[in-house]
């Protein structure tokens, strides 16, 4: 790649109007992680601007700064050439910026029409509004995105992709100057996605600036007038329409440096190791489709996949949090059909969830309580007396903190005061204490600084050495080089398997985007 990076602010060709939104030197850090390192990018009226890059490259952070959900640490946002501070979603709406974020955020009990009307900020707060039925403005927006299902039922009764269409219609219910879509086609099927792309084109034709973020490079190359590729929080490449090719984008996303399988070794004679878990054609809805995999004792297996590839859904099936629609699971040679999480845990399955704060931690509780939630019974006075020896438990928790390197003055301190990395070690410690047969870690290093990452992978290796079968789910593909074997997942299927020296970041990325 020769003419790779762009200078500060795209050079404005003479005669062309100033961009609607211009971002100059935008920087944002979360603790030690630099999500954006001085980004320059411009969004013009009537242009579909694609943003691509691996997970964590900074696309979503940029969008969040524009939407007023995050405050940038440095840099300017210019709207119509004037420096503007976006203090919150209401500010963004006033400026005519609309956002379709990666997560659904609908009011579940509202009907589709009511949810769409939430996108309308016109008129006085106390002006009378119709709350029932489907207003004309909603119908127009709905028709544009091709909604063919009723809008007068609660959205909780709609399927996920229908909910997505509602979210998209919400952004269209008012005239907007800019509409940013973060992975809008992730949960849509081919036909729905095609409709959405058509809508994006129409919007651009009517003079709206469209920002389009997608992992699906075919869509990006098909629809975008300009593509900016992010890598590690910086703009790595900006291409006008004529020069957009799939190959160029993949090259930037994947990166040039050839990373050898550092530290990764295929377990010798893997075939002779005892099989712990065997999945055959396991399916659940649209998210997990005919997945077959085998886990061996003492093996660290990575699952590489982009957000929405069905990784977490697969983990939840194994952990008994959801049940498969079809397929078989075999654990230690016996049929395995967990009907609940406690059943899965009794059979030796452990799961460190992706959402640490909402799904794993009791934030206001102490480190000790967070560590021992799975094993309180260990400090029971006797079988007949269900009391817990508080002092032994406290001492044990302090010992665990030392062995796992959890940095806290005392195990009785609240876990909320710990850094992300230490919090994650607490959650891991909770499951390591149960000595699991299968340990599943979902994005174990999200929001974790570099030092703690090394620690966490050290613990993962130890768990493998002590005989657990470990399944690591990650979008940080560099980290998966630590694994003995990597399965690549895309759109609910396992699309590739890499072993030992074959495991390279470009290879994993290529398979994800294939």
């Amino acid at each position, binding site marked *: 790649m020769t003419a790779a990076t762009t200078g500060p602010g795209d050079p404005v060709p003479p005669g062309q109007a100033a961009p609607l939104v211009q971002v100059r030197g935008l920087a944002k850090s979360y603790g030690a992680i630099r999500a954006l390192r001085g980004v320059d990018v411009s969004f013009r009226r009537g242009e579909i601007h694609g943003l691509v890059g691996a997970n964590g490259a900074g696309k979503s952070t940029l969008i969040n700064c524009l939407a007023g959900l995050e405050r940038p640490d440095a840099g300017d946002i210019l709207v119509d050439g004037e420096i503007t501070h976006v203090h919150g979603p209401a500010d963004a709406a006033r400026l005519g910026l609309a956002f379709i974020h990666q997560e659904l955020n609908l009011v579940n009990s509202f009907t589709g029409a009511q949810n769409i009307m939430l996108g309308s900020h016109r008129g006085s707060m106390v002006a009378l509004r119709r709350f029932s039925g489907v207003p004309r403005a909603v119908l127009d927006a709905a028709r544009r995105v091709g909604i063919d299902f009723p809008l007068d039922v609660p959205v909780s009764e709609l399927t996920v992709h229908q909910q997505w269409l509602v979210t998209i219609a919400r952004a269209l219910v008012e005239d907007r100057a800019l509409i940013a879509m973060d992975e809008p086609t992730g949960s849509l099927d081919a036909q729905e996605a095609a409709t959405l792309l058509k809508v994006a084109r129409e919007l651009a034709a009517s003079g709206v600036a469209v920002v389009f973020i997608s992992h699906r490079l075919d869509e990006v190359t098909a629809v975008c007038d300009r593509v900016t590729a992010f890598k590690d929080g910086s703009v790595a490449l900006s291409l006008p329409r004529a020069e957009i090719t799939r190959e160029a984008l993949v090259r930037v996303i994947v990166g040039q440096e050839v990373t050898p399988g550092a530290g990764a070794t295929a377990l010798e004679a893997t075939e002779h190791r005892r099989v712990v878990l065997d999945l055959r054609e396991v399916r659940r809805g649209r998210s997990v489709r005919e997945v077959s995999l085998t886990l061996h004792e003492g093996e660290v297996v990575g699952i590489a996949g982009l957000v929405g590839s069905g990784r977490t859904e697969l983990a939840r099936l194994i952990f008994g949090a959801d049940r498969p629609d079809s397929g078989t699971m075999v654990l230690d040679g016996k049929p395995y059909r967990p009907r609940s999480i406690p059943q899965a845990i009794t059979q030796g399955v452990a799961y460190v969830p992706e959402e640490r704060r909402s799904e794993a931690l009791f934030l206001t509780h102490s480190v000790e309580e967070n560590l021992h*939630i799975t094993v309180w019974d260990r400090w029971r006075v006797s079988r007949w007396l269900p009391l817990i020896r508080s002092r032994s438990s406290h001492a044990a928790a302090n010992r665990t903190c030392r062995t796992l390197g959890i940095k806290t003055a005392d195990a009785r301190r609240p876990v909320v005061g710990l850094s992300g990395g230490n919090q994650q070690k607490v959650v891991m410690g909770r499951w390591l204490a149960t000595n699991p047969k299968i340990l599943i870690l979902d994005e174990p290093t999200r929001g974790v600084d570099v030092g703690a990452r090394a620690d966490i992978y050290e613990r993962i290796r130890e768990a493998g050495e002590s005989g657990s079968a470990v399944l690591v789910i990650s979008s940080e593909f560099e980290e998966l080089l630590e694994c003995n074997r990597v399965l690549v997942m895309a759109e609910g299927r396992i699309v590739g398997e890499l072993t030992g020296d074959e495991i390279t970041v470009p290879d994993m990325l290529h398979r994800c985007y294939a």
Partner: protein
Amino acid sequence: MEGIIQQATKPSAEPGAEPGKAQRTLVLAGRYGTPAVLVLLLIGFTAASPQAFMTGQNLLNILNQSATLAIVAGGLTLPLVAGKFDLSFASVVSLSGILAVGFLERSSLPWFAAILLALAAAAIIGLVNGLLVAHLRINPIVATLGTSTMLLGINYAYSNGTPITLEPGPFTDIARASVLGIPVPVILTAVVLGGLWVALNFTLLGHHMQAVGANQVAARMAGVRVARITMAAFVICGLCAGLAGVVLSARIGSGQVTAGDGYLLNAFAAAFLGASVLRDGDFHILGTLVGVLIVTVTFNGLSLLGAQSYVQFLFQGGILVAATALSSTSRRLLLASARR
């Protein structure tokens, strides 16, 4: 559901600035403010009526008066710890009193059998509440409001709306006798609160209950049997309300439909006052006890001063708002300071 409880005591953590010295003082004020209010009340009432208030007899009287409320509020603390509201316990207090007296007088059962049956009925109501909330996933406020209203109907049906009275005997001794100079209700209270304290802090059940209240999703993902724990909290709450009803009916010598009504607000006030004691917004037994004492001391002291009832209401409501405001502020500051 949890959202409502959290709004009451735990403000959402907004990332704030570094706490300065003034803010640290506020944190301390939040933790120790409520016990300090109790001490101030004691000092104030002593100063206002030195002869009547600070006497051994009156202090014992205060403890005796607070016994039933303490048992009810102690029980209520468990569903609150698990993040669920129970609005039915006041009707359970009335019901178990009516049943115990009714079994004694109408069915001529021995006193211990009457008590056991009344407690069993209270436990079953707790179980029903638990089933509605944990398995049918009904909003706890609605579910317990419903059972509460149905209980009111049962109470009227069984008592015909008139108090069932009884003669003094072994049953009334539960409330009126003393052991070593200590009234039996005070002893019962100590045993119940002690038991609840141990259960919440030193058993698997208690730890899991706190986990469910702190983060129900995380508790589920950690293998806690959330439904079972929720049911246990409601059953224990029902049992405590039943016991309080028995003690109350023994004290007043009758079973009445409206006997438990006053406990609804007072028990919630006590539990919420207590949530601010030492623990920055978590419900706990020791805190609830402090809350109960504040409510009772206020009531007792103002009566001794001859205050009119409107003063009582203003005073109690004011203390409740002030103490919980202090607690929620302290909670926010604590979270802000813990986060870098």
